[in-house]
């Protein structure tokens, strides 16, 4: 399995509703996708947010991430939660007009059940984690 960014759509019950694993994703990017937008739009009444991985461990959003956060919220007409999952951290980003980027991110202490499955979609299990699962 190649290392590649992955994303998942999360509903108000903290349940994953759509695993976004499109062709063309790389270790540093997930391409634009009309399919993902339609998932967000069609599920907007129960939509809580979107999580995506940063396999290299960067725990802050890229400029592209920030454009996506803002544009999707503009399209939906409401704010969302945006999680960034690294190999060691889960960061929760949300709109904050006092932040120069418009979004502030902080460690999310909630033990979301979808975090480890999302990581497994993004990079191969390590030997130790593979042993734990077997």
């Amino acid at each position, binding site marked *: 399995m190649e290392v590649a960014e992955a994303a998942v759509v999360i509903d108000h019950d903290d349940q994953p509703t759509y695993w976004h694993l499109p062709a063309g994703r790389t270790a540093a*990017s997930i391409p634009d996708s009309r399919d993902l*937008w339609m998932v967000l739009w069609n599920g907007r009444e129960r939509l809580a947010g979107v999580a995506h991985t940063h396999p290299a461990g960067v725990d802050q959003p890229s400029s592209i991430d920030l454009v996506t956060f803002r544009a999707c919220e*503009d399209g939906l007409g409401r704010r969302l939660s945006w999680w960034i999952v690294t190999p060691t951290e889960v960061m929760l980003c949300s709109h904050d007009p006092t932040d120069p980027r418009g979004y502030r991110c902080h460690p999310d202490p909630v033990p979301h059940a979808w975090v480890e499955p999302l990581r497994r979609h993004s990079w191969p299990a390590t030997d130790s984690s593979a042993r734990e699962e077997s």
Partner: protein
Amino acid sequence: MRYARLNITWNGQNGDLPDPVSWHASDKEILQWATEAVRSGSVPGITKTHNVQLHRFVVDRFPANKQVPEDRIYVRPPTPFGAFLGDASRGINPCE
């Protein structure tokens, strides 16, 4: 001249521009027309909004087919993540 129906999504609302637009218009032109239409309140289904920001949105084009017998153009938010810089023609420019 080939024309298309233009659909816009903004602020949790969605609507078609009453008048068709040129299928061959550039993405930049489409986004500008969509912005002006929302600002002027001329899109049924979308409340007039002065500070509409569509310049980072994406333009999708779908030719007519058996199910939808007219050309359709959709303006929607972009959804890329990561360091992917995309295609400037898709309206995604992090430097803006």
